[in-house]
């Protein structure tokens, strides 16, 4: 399980636009690097990141090798109701990682 940092205001007022910041540990191996024998190191990147809010997708990013290692993605969403934010990172070769966080909306 890769380490993850997720940050957003845990309490918000209905209608507020909140900023969500995410950071996940992943080398984002581009497939263009050569090892010390000259062979290409196979590509292994996080290719898709999604965020759902009480089950509905509110953000999706398709990522390519041009995204840096340990990908940082920040975006916003409108605080509509209390519930669950589910963040999901899928990679070329590894298991999809999912993190769930609660949000309180007054």
């Amino acid at each position, binding site marked *: 399980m890769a*380490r*993850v*940092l*997720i*940050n957003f205001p845990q309490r918000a007022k209905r209608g507020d636009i909140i900023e969500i*910041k995410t*950071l*996940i*540990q992943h*080398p*984002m191996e581009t497939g263009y690097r050569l090892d010390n024998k000259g062979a290409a190191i196979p590509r292994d990147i996080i290719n898709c990141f999604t965020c759902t809010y009480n089950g509905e997708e509110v953000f999706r990013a398709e990522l390519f090798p041009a995204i*840096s*290692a*340990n990908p*940082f993605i*920040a975006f916003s969403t409108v605080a509509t109701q209390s519930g669950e934010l589910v963040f999901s990172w899928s990679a070329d070769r590894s298991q999809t990682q999912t993190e769930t966080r609660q949000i309180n909306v007054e």
Partner: protein
Amino acid sequence: MNGLLGPLLALAGAAALAAAADDRRSGYDFASPEIRAMQDDDTANPGNLWVLQGETLWDKRAGAADRSCADCHGDARVSMKGVAARYPAFDAALARPLDLEQRINQCRTEHQRAEPLAWESEDLLAVTAFVARQSRGLPITVSSSPELRPFLASGRELFEQREGQLNLACSQCHDDNWGKRLAGNLIPQGHPTGYPLYRLEWQGLGSLQRRLRNCMTGVRAEPFDYGAPQAVALELYLMERARGMPMDAPAVRP
């Protein structure tokens, strides 16, 4: 301009003089605003991914003694406060200085009775980052006891001697030419206030020794082995040279 202003102006003058005498600036001061922003935001500093891991490892039992760091040291926020700021430190039994990574491994082998963690391994970096984080903002205070003097002298000598195919000494860039540019990059003064740090070039966290090895490779010299006495002596000298400067681990640097 007497009365209140007089003494205030005198104080300001004295402060200005003191500042002029100490023109030491950390790598943070030489970094771009974007890199500084990356470092300052705890939720966006990639180094914190390792600090998080270190926090988990701190509580994890290990070795034949089945002990965790927490079992002896309790809450790291209390017990580790200021620790990284005074390493490398003298070890009386071994009669030589140990750096923080070596000290952590000493605890592992002697108190946890576990295998030492490999240099630059994710776990060792994580624990070191977690411990170093507890010294954030605190001034560097390596001991000035006489037993460290010969190691300090050796470190200083290493810093000032020319080496490698490019025949350059550390001091030539970092004492004599800081602030100028080397092939597009601003040369910093070379203070270790932020280690272990996230180097953009590595796209990962690394130790001071790793960075020193990069410098040595840069001048085409054979780098010291990890944990070599020269490497530790050099670390000791660098920390002494940075005495009083605040720690900012885990830093972000280009």
